């Protein structure tokens, strides 16, 4: 299996958008990717936009507020910071910055205007959320935008799931009908320009299961059609083939002799080889072989997308207790930079 080189997905890229079907481990993968980049000496900001506090749970820190919080510092100078973007806070901040509202801001809140703008007008919400990301990506150390060095070497966005990702990123099209003029409209245009720029890529996380792969294929097509660069497909929770396939095939052939041999082997090392245990071991092998075959088909489907792929192992202990670092090292070993 050969896939295109990773360089296309990582060289010169400063915004990594991570999406995937619900339940595939999007947040874990985004966190591992951010940590891998930080471990290589970069200053990285990990952003979540759905208010789930996935970052605080993953890194075992108190829930994130509206400020950027340092999560990890590496000896080599790399740093990982986290931010949970909240649409309401973003709108208030936005209004304060552009309109110097002062006390009127409180009135807006009381009137339900903030709720109104952030909940019901869907495009507006997404403009506000992606707007914060836009700000972080472009932020410089100088006193004015564009002056001085970039504050973040990379921004990793734990984005909405595949079902909503294209609409989420396509903020420009979203607000085009609703807000035809005004600052939200022009902000949306700048955001879209940044997201379509080659410094931004979308990574799609999947499992080797039917529905996530199907959604991945759909999302890759949708994103490309909408003009967004797709970076990699990241296959999560990959289980190494435990049993050589030739052996599995042998387990399936001539069941009676195979069962007899297994029984004899087990007995030779003092394991009670009941009929049920022998049959059970063979049926587990049969199921495993089926699973391996299915995963091979799904892998082929993923590869056929023509994108570089990364894979992350299933950790038997789950991601608690330093699992994220293991996954980050894995990404670095596969060439993520």
């Amino acid at each position, binding site marked *: 299996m050969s896939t295109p080189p990773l360089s296309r997905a990582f060289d010169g890229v400063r915004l990594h958008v991570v999406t995937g079907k619900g339940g595939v481990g999007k947040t874990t993968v985004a966190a591992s990717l951010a940590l891998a980049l930080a471990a290589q000496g970069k200053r990285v900001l990990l952003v979540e936009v759905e208010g789930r506090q996935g970052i605080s749970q993953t890194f075992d820190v108190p829930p994130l507020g509206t400020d950027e919080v340092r999560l990890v510092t590496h000896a080599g100078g790399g740093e990982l910071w986290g931010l949970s973007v909240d649409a309401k806070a973003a709108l208030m901040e936005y209004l304060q910055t552009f309109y110097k509202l002062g006390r009127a801001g409180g009135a807006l809140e009381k009137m339900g205007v903030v709720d109104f703008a952030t909940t019901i007008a869907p495009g507006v919400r997404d403009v506000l959320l992606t707007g914060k990301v836009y700000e972080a990506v472009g932020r410089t150390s100088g006193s004015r935008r564009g002056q001085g060095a970039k504050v973040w070497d990379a921004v990793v966005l734990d984005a909405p799931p595949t079902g909503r990702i294209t609409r989420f990123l396509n903020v420009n099209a979203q607000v085009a*009908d609703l807000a035809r003029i005004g600052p939200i409209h022009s902000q949306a245009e700048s955001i879209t320009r940044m997201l379509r720029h080659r410094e931004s890529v979308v990574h799609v996380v999947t499992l080797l299961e039917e529905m996530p792969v199907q959604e991945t294929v759909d999302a890759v097509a949708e994103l490309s059609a909408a003009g967004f660069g797709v970076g990699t497909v990241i296959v999560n929770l990959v289980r190494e083939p435990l049993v050589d396939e030739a052996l599995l095939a042998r387990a399936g052939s001539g069941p009676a002799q195979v069962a007899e041999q297994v029984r004899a082997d*087990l007995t030779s090392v003092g394991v009670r080889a009941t009929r049920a245990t022998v049959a059970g071991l063979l049926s587990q092998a049969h199921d495993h072989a089926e699973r391996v075959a299915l995963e091979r088909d799904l892998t082929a489907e993923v590869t056929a997308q023509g994108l570089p792929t990364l894979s992350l192992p299933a950790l038997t202990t789950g991601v608690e207790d330093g699992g994220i670092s293991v996954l980050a090292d894995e990404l670095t070993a596969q060439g993520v930079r």
Partner: protein
Amino acid sequence: MVSRPAPARLDVDTLLADPGTGIIVCCGSGGVGKTTTAAALGVRAAEAGRRVVVLTIDPARRLAQSLGLTELDNVPRPVAGVGTASGGSLDAMMLDMKRTFDEVVEAHSTPDKAEQILANPFYQAVSSSFAGTQEYMAMEKLSQLRAQAEREGTWDLVIVDTPPSRSALDFLDAPKRLGSFLDGRFIRLLTAPARAGGRAYLKVFSVSATIAAATISKVLGGAFLSDVQTFVAALDTMFGGFRERADLTYALLKEPATAFVVVAAPERDALREAAYFVERLESEGMPLAGVVVNRMMALAAPALSGGRATAAAEQLEDASQGDGDPAASGELTSALLRLHADLASVAERHEGHVRRFVAGHPGVPMSTVPASATDIHDLEGLRTVGAALARG
């Protein structure tokens, strides 16, 4: 060994057979197999004699095909191949969110008013992408199906799958949010001119409301505000309040005829969501039937421990190195043992997660479904899942 409290068993067959069970709501976080559980319950109930309709939200393509859900026309269709010997039947449908919303509009207004609303850009945005619309429309469709079932006697059991929300709780909150939202103070003020006509506008609008409207106009452009005004005004006159409808749906969910089945996978996050949901249902006084944990690793050779399997594999490998005869060696057997040890450690992890859940929620009935080697996409697979659900 210390004996642990065993979870109460979720008796699925009794639940399905009880004529008092009129609605089953399957909820849980994304990717835990809600749709499969809903479909499996539907097939089992139908083959036990219930006349069932299953409302799915976003089924996998092949599962949808096997249920005959190839047409997206927002109407339940009979599922072919379901046993009808005991007098039951199964219909299934896939929710078309926008269409459901359109139908609500069309059913409650005059044709030209409906046309005006459907063409409003604000309506188009809200009906196709507002974060709560899918949840709201799923509940709307549920009430519709329930009403149709009562009116025409078509079905005696409605099973609903819930939208793949960012968290399981969204679906309980979203309808209320949308309802209370459209009923909110700002919206009221926005629509005041339309209601009271021209001049009253100035009196009704307080100073802060004027600032608010002016700000919205500045940020979003003036057309936005007038679109919203027409939209809300048009909606308002025909609906008698979104909140009222949301409240009715909420009340329906609290009826004893409703049973919530919380679906989870044996992983930390999914069970944490399930725990939140169980607690939430309790505090809302909503009837919880139990928790289903899908995809439990089930060992086919449970008598052999993982540790013993690893030790035996090592012994076999040592022995084969000694005699230098790979063909006769226990290569295959040791591979089988290694596989078993690995599966056993996964099974142990799954059981650990479930145990922690049970310890925190004693007395919540539970049923576990073993993981199948491949994905489920036909009636036979759904029957197997149904049988596992019934076993507990």
